[in-house]
């Protein structure tokens, strides 16, 4: 699902956001990304959303190297990742309903679909009776639940929560943690970046990636890249004299896969509506 292959992001001469980070996240996993402030958690998220591009290495999302995602396709890539921020980032001039509906409007969904989806999401986050309130009328926990509902609006396969409980009390934090767990159980890959002890205790069973000064110092359940296995098979075949292939052919064989993925992304572009 998400692969970091020796990824580094250098900001200045000796300042790294992340440094030589490699890991594999499978679909449906619940991941905790931990580490102190400035350890690179947010940079990691920005690399996945392609707000940052790696200085070295490659980030692969759903078998598609992000370096192959053209700027014109970036919005489509971002619609596949729900992002929850520590400071919620709700639009202050829009009410709860409008905030949750925003990604659906962006994705060009019909009003019936928006109505149905927003209703379901507000039920999920238990805010169906507060749909008319504006962000400044909500508590921190409620605002964060709206933010989660908004992140889930277009049913992204991945949800990235960046310090989701950073501004919340323990009770609200627990509610958010339970909500994230529930979302994960429904099949969404959930990545939670945090250094909140409450979260760490409540999600102790989850796989944990720990960052320190931009380097990955701990992966509690390291996974191998599935693509790697395929590559190994190819390597094995290469060893057999009859099936030996030239590197050029190998590149050619791999190339269509990336091309197909880019085409998939292009196909997922909303089609222009015909005249009614």
């Amino acid at each position, binding site marked *: 699902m998400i692969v970091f292959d020796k990824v580094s992001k250098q900001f200045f001469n000796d300042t790294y956001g992340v440094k030589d980070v490699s890991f594999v996240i499978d679909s449906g996993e619940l991941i905790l990304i931990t580490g102190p402030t400035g350890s690179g958690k947010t940079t990691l998220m920005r690399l996945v959303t392609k*707000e940052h591009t790696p200085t070295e290495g490659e980030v692969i999302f759903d078998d598609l190297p992000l370096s192959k995602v053209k700027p014109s396709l970036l*919005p489509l*890539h971002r619609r596949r990742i729900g992002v929850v921020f520590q400071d919620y*980032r709700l639009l202050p*001039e829009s009410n709860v309903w*409008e905030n949750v509906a925003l*990604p659906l409007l*962006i994705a060009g969904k019909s009003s019936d679909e928006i109505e149905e989806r927003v209703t379901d999401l507000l039920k999920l986050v238990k805010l169906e009776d507060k749909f008319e309130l504006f962000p400044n009328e909500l508590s921190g926990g409620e605002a964060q639940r709206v933010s989660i509902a908004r992140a889930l609006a277009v049913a992204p396969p991945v949800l990235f929560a960046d310090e989701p409980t950073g501004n919340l009390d323990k009770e609200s934090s627990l509610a958010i943690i339970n909500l994230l767990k529930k979302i994960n159980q429904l099949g969404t890959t959930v990545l939670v970046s945090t250094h909140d002890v409450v979260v760490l205790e409540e999600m102790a069973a989850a796989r944990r990636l720990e960052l320190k000064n931009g380097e990955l110092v701990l992966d509690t359940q390291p996974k191998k890249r599935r693509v790697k296995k395929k590559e190994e098979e190819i390597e094995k075949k290469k060893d057999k004299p009859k099936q030996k292939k030239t590197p050029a052919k190998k590149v050619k064989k791999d190339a269509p896969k990336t091309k197909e993925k880019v085409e998939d992304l292009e196909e997922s572009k909303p089609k222009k509506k015909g005249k009614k």
Partner: protein
Amino acid sequence: MNPFTTALTNIRRSPFQSITAMAITAVTLFVAYSFSLMILGTQQILNYFETRPQVIGFFELDASVAEINQVSEKMRQKTYVKDIQLITQEEALATYRDENRDDPLLLELVTADILPASIEVSADEISALVQVKNDLTGLDAVEEVVFQQDIIDSLTNWTTSVRYIGIATVVTLGLTSFLIITALISMKVTHRKKAIQVMSFLGASSWFIKAPFFFEGVIYGLIGSLTGWGVMFAALLYLTPWLKEFLGTISILPIPWEVFAIQLSIGTLITILLGGFAGTTAVKRMMK
């Protein structure tokens, strides 16, 4: 919420900024529309003078009919002469009477023998008028020659000046409007910077983010253009009686509605594009 509704909401939420943008656009368009009518008007006046008899020769009072016909015949033979019209003393008196029919005293005092006959000569080209003038001056029967070239030259200079001043003024004001709309929308974009970042994170396309600001600029352009035209039209209606009196026999009023339609369409289209471009320029700078 569609982008047009969002644009209207943005305008409603900052009324003074929006009124400033619309006012400067309206002033620009008022000046542009006024100058375009002035240019059209001066061009019409120029055409009027160019189509009139361009050289008039007045005969001696004692010139005989034979002498007058001889002059007419001589002039008619010139290749550069387009048309000739002879006005006899009786015809001159008839014209005089017609023009002064409300003043019996003047009519009583004047008789045909004190009015000179005249010859009105038009040339194919304005450049031939000097030659026509010289020809008429050289003839014994002709006492005086009135030549309108100097009037036409003066009018041509005037029209050119009006055109250049108009273009310079409209370009300057247009640029000012563009910069003011860009600055005002930039302020709004800055105010919505976080919202734009959030939308970008949520996968909003570039157009989704730009559209409300584009439409905001378009609305400023549209309202500015219609207001500017409305004020210009009202001013024209107010000045029409004075202009008619000033222009006398030069008939350019009332201006045909087709002229107004073309003027308003072109002006509105240009300002809509100008406003839209200003709006997208403002947001583009922020998105970089």
